[in-house]
């Protein structure tokens, strides 16, 4: 039953990514925390959401590009990570989320093709038809997001339930492994913001502030 509720949450959050609002509650950091809270484990939700946000810093819902679907991926990742205790479950949850983001991205492409079939031709435009097809496409996106989340959460929970408790790495090593992947995204982002050569002073000042802030806290 819990997975069904989580699937509906996945459908709602998926809507925000492109179809409705784009208030960015669909970003991994937010959807992870919300899902964790809904599952009674906000701390795990925050950790998984923050790690996936780090990976998806360079993934934007822009135009016709295919991009990993962060919202459903994060809901699936958190639902999976909370199926067992320990850092192994978090590592597996993040990995499952990364895979499921690609699955979600493919389903978005399929839906966009389907939408194109139903859009009325300009010559046959009728206001009620324009409205009903638009709302039907929104409803279809919700159903798609829910279905993607449902299948992902069931698969993920089974996988983490089977493998999570046997995870052999220490917490620090598990975290290190996940952060190495996130570091690639951070590097890509620096390049897209102008590159190290051009931005080195600001970047260095930021690092100094970050290190000082961490020491102070």
């Amino acid at each position, binding site marked *: 039953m819990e997975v069904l509720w989580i699937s509906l949450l996945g459908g709602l959050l998926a809507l925000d990514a*492109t*179809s*409705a609002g*784009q*208030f*960015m509650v669909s*970003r991994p*950091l*937010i959807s992870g925390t919300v899902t964790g809270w809904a599952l009674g484990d906000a701390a795990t*939700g925050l*950790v998984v959401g*923050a790690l996936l946000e780090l*990976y998806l*810093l*360079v*993934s934007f819902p*822009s*135009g016709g590009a295919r991009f990993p679907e962060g919202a459903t991926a994060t809901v699936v990742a958190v639902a999976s990570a909370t199926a067992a205790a320990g850092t192994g479950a978090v*590592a597996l949850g*993040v990995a499952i989320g990364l895979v499921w983001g690609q699955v979600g991205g493919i389903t978005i492409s399929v839906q*966009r*093709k389907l*939408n*194109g079939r139903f*859009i*009325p031709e300009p010559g*046959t435009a009728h*206001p009620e038809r*324009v409205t009903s*097809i*638009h709302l039907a496409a929104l409803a279809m*996106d919700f159903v798609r997001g829910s279905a993607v989340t449902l299948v992902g959460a069931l698969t993920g929970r089974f996988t983490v339930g089977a493998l*999570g408790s046997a*995870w052999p790495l220490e917490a*620090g090593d598990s*975290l*290190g492994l996940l*952060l*190495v*992947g*996130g*570091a*690639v995204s*951070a*590097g*890509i982002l*620096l390049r*897209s*913001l102008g*590159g190290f050569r051009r931005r080195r002073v*600001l970047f260095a000042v*930021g*690092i100094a*502030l*970050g*290190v*000082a*802030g*961490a020491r102070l*806290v």
Partner: protein
Amino acid sequence: MAVLTRRSLAAAFARSFLIQGSWNNRTMLGSGFAFAILPALRRIFDEDPEAFAASLGRHLEHFNAHPYLSNVALGAAVRLEADGEDAESVRRFKTAVRGPLGGLGDALVWAAWLPAVSMAALSLVWLGAPGWAAVTTFLVVYNLGHVGLRAWGFRAGLAEGRDVARSLTRASLSAWTERVRALATLLLGLLVGSVMAGEGGLAEAGLPWGGLAAAAFVGGELVGHRLWRPAAIAVVASVALVATWGWLL
């Protein structure tokens, strides 16, 4: 313009939040644009159903822009229709603005504003702030920019009509993009610093992982987006291998 009511304009603005609801490969934002402008057109062509259908039809045609900045075109299209501009002028206007509105919006919002606010929130997490503080900061700050940009775009388009390019020039969105990119760089540094030294960061993982992360960062900076997928695959494969190894032990 007199024919438009506050209510019809508010409805068009509210619907603009759903403009990507039927995004498709054929007309892209076209059907969403028609859905958003519908309440205004209904009011403008209240007594002329044929003109209403013809106008709705032309707004169903292919259109694409950044979803937030598409409000500039939406407001301007409402103004042009209310002013009784001919179909070809409206069509030419939309064709002329879609490229710039897409490019400006992608650069300002997706490539600068969103990552900047994300990194600020992530830095809070790694600096030990409560989760709710990071989430609230992200949602409030991001949406101040988001909703503000949508509202500004709609108002500017409505006020200037076909001359809305003047508003875009005055607003100097490119200069704003550059400023936000500079801020985002500072925040990226802040995030890297807090991940290096903060709670649950690389300091806890140990020196070898720190070295690997530094190498991965440099690789990302040198190679760019092409490295994202291989890196994600490598992480997933590593996690799968470790999990299988643990299961076999």
